């Protein structure tokens, strides 16, 4: 029981988002086009994960759309969602699976199983994808045509977010404190850099630089940091150290123009990519609420902020414009932790 609580604490404090990508232009957009899917984690071990859809044009909100479309629950802890072509891939962490859906209507078309504790899926552009894992020493390689795990890459422990830059995949190897550079065509490690602590979240700025946040599950020996890396040589160009061990930055997201890096450290902060010091005041202050997740809409540049409330009841998503002014809010499911944006019509 205590370990369950502990895992819950860990999962509860790890903020999740992923920049979803769309590989192909889709002329015939369906019900859920022009909007955002919110993956609601649900309570750990309770199985009330869900997906909420918010339509940009009129603000219409559809709750629990996966269950409505398929008449089954999504599972336990919906971690992230990624779009690849016509399909959506919903990573359900504590169910050890990725549900594959037609993203226009969320109808189920398959399940990728054989995963331990999956976190994020990144499409490689070659019909395959990588899936990171909380409890595995391996990065899973899955075939998106057969929806099967076909290979694995030894990475030595817990992995979190990934990005694809200039044909290489960069993986936050949280458990070993490294950033890995992998060739997606050969599944071989090209380079790695040890940055210490626990890197979790990554973003890419307008200059193609890689931003990484490191933290620990608890303020321990060293403070958390935000780093900028040159992805080619995997060299650290800038290190911004948090003022205290009690600062816990997470959830990096690049602004639409790539000129700012947004992150959560209690509240939402904005960091110009040219800055040499951390911002002193938040861009968005929800006090006394602690936001749980953020992401930036690649179409509008709006900032979506998830509020987990008491983490046992439905949460809220607040929408801000790029300047941090509140545009509106909508009800989400339990613990809104991830955002996945669908294409503009």
């Amino acid at each position: 029981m205590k370990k369950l609580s502990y895992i819950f604490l860990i999962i509860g404090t790890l903020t999740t988002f992923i920049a979803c990508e769309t590989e192909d232009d889709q002329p015939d957009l369906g019900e859920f086009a022009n909007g955002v899917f919110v993956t609601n984690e649900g309570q750990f071990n309770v199985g009330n994960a869900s997906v909420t859809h918010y339509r940009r044009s009129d603000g219409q909100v559809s709750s629990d759309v996966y269950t409505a479309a398929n008449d089954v629950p999504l599972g336990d802890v919906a971690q992230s969602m990624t779009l690849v072509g016509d399909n959506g891939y919903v990573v359900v962490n504590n169910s050890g699976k990725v549900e594959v859906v037609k993203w226009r209507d969320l109808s189920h078309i398959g399940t990728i199983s054989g995963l331990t504790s999956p976190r994020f899926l990144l499409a490689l552009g070659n019909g395959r994808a990588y899936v990171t894992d909380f409890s595995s020493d391996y990065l899973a390689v899955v075939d998106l045509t057969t929806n099967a795990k076909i290979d694995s890459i030894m990475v030595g422990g817990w992995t979190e977010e990934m990005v694809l830059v200039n044909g290489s995949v960069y993986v936050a190897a949280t458990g070993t404190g490294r950033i890995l550079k992998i060739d997606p065509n050969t599944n071989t490690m090209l380079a790695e850099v040890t940055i210490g602590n626990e890197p979790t979240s990554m973003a890419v700025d307008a200059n193609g630089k890689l931003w990484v946040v490191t933290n620990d599950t608890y303020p321990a020996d060293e403070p958390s940091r935000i780093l900028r890396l040159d992805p080619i040589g995997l060299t650290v160009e800038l290190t911004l150290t948090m003022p205290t061990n009690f600062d816990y930055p997470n959830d990096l997201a690049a602004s639409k123009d790539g000129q700012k890096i947004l992150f959560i450290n209690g509240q939402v902060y904005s960091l110009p990519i040219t800055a040499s010091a951390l911002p002193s005041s938040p861009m968005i202050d929800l006090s006394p609420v602690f936001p749980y997740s953020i992401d930036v809409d690649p179409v509008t540049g709006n900032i979506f902020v998830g509020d987990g409330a008491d983490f046992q009841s439905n949460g809220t998503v607040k929408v801000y414009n790029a300047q941090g002014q509140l545009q509106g809010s909508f009800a989400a499911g339990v613990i809104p932790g991830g955002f996945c944006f669908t294409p503009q019509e």
Partner: protein
Amino acid sequence: MGVAAWCAVITPAQAQSRDTVRVPEALIIGVRVPLADRSAIGTSVSQIDSAILAKPGITLNDAIRTASVLNLREYGPGGIATLTMRGAGASHTGVLWQGMSLNDPMLGMADLSVLMLLGASDVLVLHGPAAQSFGPGQLAGAIDLRTALPTDSSVHVQAEFGAGSFGQWRGGAGASLRKGRWAASVSGAAVWAENDFTFSDLARIGHPNDTMTNSRVHQQGASGSVAYEVNHLNRLRLDGLYLRNDRQLPPTMVSPTGRDALFDEKALMVLGWERNGRRTTTDIRTSYAYSDQDFFDSKADTNYLNRSHTFRIRAAQQVLLGRGFAFVARLNSDLAWGRSSSGYADGVFRHMNQATISVAHKPLPWLSGEIQAGVQSLNEKVYPGPFLIGSVIRLLPDWELRGNISSNMRFPSLNDLYWYPGGNVALRPEHQLAAELGNRFDRRIEAWRVVAAFQLFVAGYSDLIQWQPGQSYWVPENVRSTLNKGTETELGFDVDLKKMKVILRLMHQWNRAYMDVALSPTDPTLGQQLIYVPEHQAKMLLDLEAFGAALGADAQFVSGRNVATDGSSTLPPYWLVAAHVGYRITVKKAHSINLRFSLNNIFDQQYQTMAWRPMPGRNWAISLRYGFN
């Protein structure tokens, strides 16, 4: 009956051999209760009939599920099971053995699936403030498993063997005897269960049938009690309990790949001295409890070790002052040490004390009352309370009214205080202010008995501890306030003739328990029923026995329950119906053989008591018991 409840029961043949009955004013039951365990006047104590506990094959969870107003939350067969009362949580509900707490000091609650009846002849249900005498913590009430030792000079021996669906096997034996000033009882039992039942998988498209995996249980337990009458005033007693449970934790429908496991080992030793003088009564008991819980997390491939040692002293002194006055002083002291490999590897201490004095008065034959006040402490901090004022008015010889107003508190668990990260040593105790009013009609006419009881209760909880998401990790805070109110209704009808017995019980509980203070202006949880608290529970139990043959049935209804605090996800209501037949052969009055066959969940209901944890459908069990008197 769920397979999880296969905690085998061996009750030595002692139901007919009770200690001298000495019924305190507040109790309406026929069980001898030592002074330290007596509840205050005006509170409510009921009993799960010893005749129900003595049935072959019955388990503690069966008895609670079918014959009490308590709410059992079962995490699936073999999984964890917690007990709740009156809308409060498992950490507010005490599980006692011979009056000593089995609640884990690290979590603050007890896992009922580990506990076996093991010679317990009576299960007392202490409603709300009736559990106040047992120290801080049991705000919602408690159950107390008691073992009565024989009063006659014969030997009683019993052995039982059983089997059932889903690879269930169990066996056990017990004996009790009295010789001169000595009385003793011993029992032991073991259970094996595969729990590989089939269920409809509601989490998969098309809801196909699945077979439960990773749910094997191996359980053993033993208990012993020995008492010595030093003289007509003084009595010593030693009780011991050992429980061991090695089990796989079944996966949920939404997380089907889980292969976790849990190993529990618990031991409790209680040493007591009672002195029953003409004007004074003394009861002093001390206990040592050991608990080991090792959780294997299959995903992390790691074993997490949790161990605790708890020393307790419970002492009570009563002085009869004359003119209907009595004075009682009590002390409950609890020193707990715990070590968790994942939360506090170096070990932590908690020291709780409670001292109370009470004055009881019976000015008239039909009127009695009690006032109780005390102080409590957690480590170095002292708090006023508990307080209680209660009264009983006997309207007729068989009909009484009772009521009380009380205040009590629960201290944080070791995890709440010291868990790393997050543990909060600045936590305040949870507070409860409660009132209840009830009446009970209990008439016996020769072999016939009719019981009717109705209680109305209301309890306000404040400073409830809840783990809250913080900036970087979760922290327990005193944030919640709830209001719990409801009714408990029980109707009973017994016939005990020479060749025929009838037991009929009808029970209902209505419980509205909700957040009554908003945490924010738009708090969606305000007014919502607390999670996993059914608003209605109804139970029926019927046992017929004639000329050695037995026939019976029980049914229970549990209404829908919230799973999320804002009511956005719920579990549906369910009905369960079970039936049993049996036959008893007695040879030369000394030997008896009792065979019982039960069919549970007759209508094959697919139901859950906890979300996405399937419970068994229709299943059977057979038990054979041999007894020698």
